[in-house]
């Protein structure tokens, strides 16, 4: 006589706990490493050595900024948590080709017009201590 086949349940209680833990850990890792909270991000715009202009990245709608640089006006669009150059008087338009910035630490520059666009944390004080860099 054949022994009845024992099929284990798909999930035991412990399996469900492990699965939930894995989902929670994955979510936490995503939050820490990939997810970029736009309310914590701001755009720092520096033009021709002038004190930086700070704009929040979390604002609603579309904001077009015109910044006077060394050789003309650079237009910067801030929209949907991103910032980008859309026009600049430089000969090659490399700053426009750099595309939209959306994560903290990203930067785009129009070197001929001396305009720098940088995404920074709201906690980060622009150019702290007046330092130009830190050797580490």
């Amino acid at each position, binding site marked *: 006589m054949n022994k009845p086949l024992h099929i284990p349940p798909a999930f035991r209680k412990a399996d469900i706990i492990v699965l939930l833990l894995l989902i929670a850990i994955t979510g936490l890792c995503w939050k820490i490493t990939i997810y970029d909270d736009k309310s914590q991000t701001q755009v720092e715009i520096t033009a021709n*050595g002038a004190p930086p202009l700070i704009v929040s990245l979390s604002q609603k709608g579309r904001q077009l900024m015109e910044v006077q640089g060394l050789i003309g006006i650079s237009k910067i669009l801030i929209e949907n948590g991103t910032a980008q150059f859309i026009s600049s008087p430089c000969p090659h338009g490399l700053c426009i080709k750099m595309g939209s910035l959306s994560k903290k630490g990203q930067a785009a520059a129009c*070197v*001929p017009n001396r305009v720098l666009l940088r995404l920074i944390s709201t906690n980060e004080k622009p150019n702290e*201590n*007046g*330092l*130009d*860099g*830190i*050797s*580490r």
Partner: protein
Amino acid sequence: MGIKAALVNAGGDLRSFGLKPGKKPFRIGIQNPDNAQSIVGILRVTDCAVATSGDYERFFKMDGKRWHHILDPKTGRPGRLTRSVTVIAQSTMMADGLATAFFVMGPKAAIDLANGLKDIEAAIIAPNKRFYMSRGFSKYLEKEK
């Protein structure tokens, strides 16, 4: 492109040329090996490179010991004579290479070597927090106000 001054920062290794508007030199902080949020001094530089090697950037701790990425070729283990070395040189490649070599050599031998090299200055922080400098390094240090 007509650029008269710039500071290039490649992950903490820097090369500057020219002077900032107002004819001011670039101000570079040297990171505190014990606290990433603070600095131990400020350098005023132009037309030179600054690189720092330290045991605080890439490491793990095991059995209460810090195991970092700068290995002493004599032992195959992380160098223990130094916490951080900052080198000023004409090229970033030279500054970075010497910073790592000086780290492994230890403060006294490294400062002796730096004093004998042309256009090279070095500052070293030892594990006992003592600060060693080559002869010409202090001329780059910003004096506290």
